[in-house]
């Protein structure tokens, strides 16, 4: 079997050649087997053909055929397929020519046996090989006919050409189909190999990417914890273990409550839970006291490419140092402010004592000096107050204390505190309260006073002629507004976005002329926001500015007298 398989395994690069030679090998082996059987049969007298010379008639020709087959096979395997096929077909034509009585071959029953080599030629040689063998067959036929003085069967000979044509066409289409098939195969092979290469490259890339991401996660300084959709930690990087002082193995599998456990104060745990619940909407990270560290915690949902939620990722950053610095800064500013206030208070008090003639009357000049001292003390106290407020705002300790107040009184107290300032500049200070404003409201009167006096003092400061108007009104049923409108220098459009930033002043030259550290409006805005309000500015250069602070309207409940 192995020998046969090797026999059919033709060593050639041309696929058509291999196909033809393999077919030839099959046919030749078939013929050889038949010849071998005939030999054996003749040897044992199984066939006789009634001649009594079985050995002579069958054994010798069969042996010759067998030897011929071996030669053809050898040529086919080691030499040329074309030569082997031609020999085989020539042999076949010869056998047909001499296998029967000449009359039968020329015009009788054996004539049609020529069809076999003609058809085979188109398959074993080239497609046009059938025409060659029609020619050879007819030469053999005609020669034979001549030798026995018979007329060749011309219609049959014509018929052979038709058979050859059909065989040529069939073989050609077969070859074409095979060529196409091979082309398709080649194309397919190419595609498969391309795709395989692409896949392998993608896989390599993916592996590289994954290991890169893994390396990044491992070396990132911030703690990263990934939670699954059930809220349990599935991945934690080494930084997390450093921050939370627990090995990864003890972090994985726990939910946020178990992670916080005893390390986070109870009051802060609920904030963390809230952050977890709406992590995507939380604007800024949350600072959490975690053990002896302050950690900045931010949480974002993880979504896979299809948009499906795959859990969440928490990023922890150690901000202990920053928190400490911030706390120290606030404490420092607060301490300095308090410490500054005490001597300032003393200077103010002593000056007042002089002004009030406690130690005897002052001369006109002395009175003027005392007044200048008081004015400058006022400015300094204003600055210190602003710094203190800013420090409290930054530290988040500035509290709003709601109480009942009368809007009219609020305006009056502001008028009395800044009225002299307006008077000195020759400005008209107008106050208007809309008739639909309630007589009393709920709010932090001290902080509202601070907002209004700041806006009004600012307006007076930046207005050289005309008027400053304070208006209280209701823009809608749920809100009330305080508006300060002036006819001053105005604020350039370019400065409007920064006007509420700390330490900002509309214009440096103006800033130098009109003293202050530029905290006023930043504090005003923050105070308004702390009172759940909103402040807006509209201004035109040279025409004046209008600040409008709007607050939720909470009408004070009439006090129930105890009976």
């Amino acid at each position, binding site marked *: 079997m192995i020998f046969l398989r090797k026999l059919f395994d033709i060593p050639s690069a041309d696929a058509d050649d291999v196909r033809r030679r393999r077919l030839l090998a099959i046919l030749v082996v078939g013929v050889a087997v038949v010849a071998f059987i005939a030999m054996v049969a003749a040897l044992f007298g199984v066939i006789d053909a009634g001649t009594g010379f079985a050995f002579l008639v069958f054994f010798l020709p069969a042996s010759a055929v067998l030897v011929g087959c071996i030669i053809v096979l050898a040529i086919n395997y080691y030499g040329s397929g074309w030569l082997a096929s031609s020999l085989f077909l020539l042999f076949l034509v010869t056998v047909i020519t001499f296998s029967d009585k000449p009359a039968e071959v020329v015009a009788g029953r054996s004539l049609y046996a020529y069809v076999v080599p003609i058809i085979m030629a188109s398959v074993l040689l080239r497609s046009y090989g059938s025409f060659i063998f029609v020619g050879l067959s007819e030469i053999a036929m005609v020669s034979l006919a001549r030798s026995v003085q018979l007329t060749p069967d011309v219609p049959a000979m014509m018929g052979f050409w038709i058979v050859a044509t059909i065989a040529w066409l069939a073989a050609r289409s077969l070859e074409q189909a095979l060529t196409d098939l091979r082309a398709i195969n080649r194309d397919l092979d190419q595609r498969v190999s391309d795709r395989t290469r692409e896949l392998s490259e993608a896989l390599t890339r993916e592996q590289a990417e994954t290991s890169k991401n893994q390396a990044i996660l491992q070396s990132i300084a911030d703690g990263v914890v990934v939670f699954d959709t059930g809220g349990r930690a599935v991945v934690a990087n080494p930084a997390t273990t450093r921050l939370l002082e627990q090995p990864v193995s003890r972090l994985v599998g726990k939910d946020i409550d178990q992670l916080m456990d005893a390390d986070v104060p109870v009051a802060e745990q609920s904030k963390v839970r809230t952050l977890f619940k709406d992590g995507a909407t939380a604007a800024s990270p949350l600072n959490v006291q975690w053990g002896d560290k302050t950690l900045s915690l931010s949480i974002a949902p993880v979504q896979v490419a299809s948009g499906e939620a795959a859990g969440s990722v928490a990023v922890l950053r150690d901000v202990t140092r920053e928190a400490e610095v911030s706390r120290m800064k606030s404490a420092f500013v607060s301490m300095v402010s*308090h410490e500054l*206030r*005490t*001597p*300032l*208070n*003393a200077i*103010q*008090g*002593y000056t*007042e*004592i002089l002004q*009030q003639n*406690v130690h005897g009357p002052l001369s006109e000049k002395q009175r003027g000096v005392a007044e200048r001292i008081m004015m400058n003390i006022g400015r300094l*106290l204003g600055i210190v107050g602003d710094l203190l407020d800013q420090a409290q705002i930054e530290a988040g*300790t500035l*509290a709003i*204390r709601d109480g009942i107040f009368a809007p009219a009184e609020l305006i009056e107290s502001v008028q009395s505190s800044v009225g002299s300032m307006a008077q000195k500049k020759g400005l008209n200070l107008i106050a208007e309260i809309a008739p639909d404003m309630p007589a009393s409201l709920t709010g932090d009167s001290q902080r509202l006073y601070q907002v209004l006096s700041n806006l009004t003092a600012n307006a007076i400061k930046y207005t050289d002629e005309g008027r400053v108007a304070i208006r209280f009104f209701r823009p809608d049923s749920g809100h009330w507004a305080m508006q300060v409108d002036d006819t001053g220098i105005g604020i350039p459009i370019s400065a409007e976005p920064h006007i509420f930033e700390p330490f900002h002043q509309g214009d440096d030259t103006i800033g130098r002329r009109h003293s202050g550290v530029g905290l006023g409006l930043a504090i005003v805005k923050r105070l308004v926001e702390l009172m759940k309000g909103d402040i807006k500015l509209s201004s035109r250069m040279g025409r004046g500015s209008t600040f409008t602070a709007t607050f939720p309207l909470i009408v004070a409940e009439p006090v129930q007298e105890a009976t």
Partner: protein
Amino acid sequence: MKPIALVIEDDEDLATIFTEATEAAGYQVEAIPSGDLALRRLEEVTPYLIVLDLHLPVVTGPQILKFIRANDRLKDAQVIIASADDRLAEYHRDKATMVMLKPISFVQLRDLTQRLRPADSPPA
């Protein structure tokens, strides 16, 4: 007989100014520079008015306030908290007659203490 006022304040200058203001309002004033001295003095006198700083050495303002309110003899005294610490002052507001946040003006304190004076006291 002028009503008695105690100015409990550790800053010497502020104590002087507060004393001048309350004296100008018609009180007989005594300035005390620390909490422990204040407690000792409160055992001896029954002031009508007390101007009290909250951040005091040794014994703090809130402790003195607690002592005053727990003492039958002193509990009717008018107490003005004079502090720069608005949060602490606010916390103790209900235990005091009124809260004044530093900086406190001489005129303001003088006018206010004048209004708090008992009706039968002699004019300043």
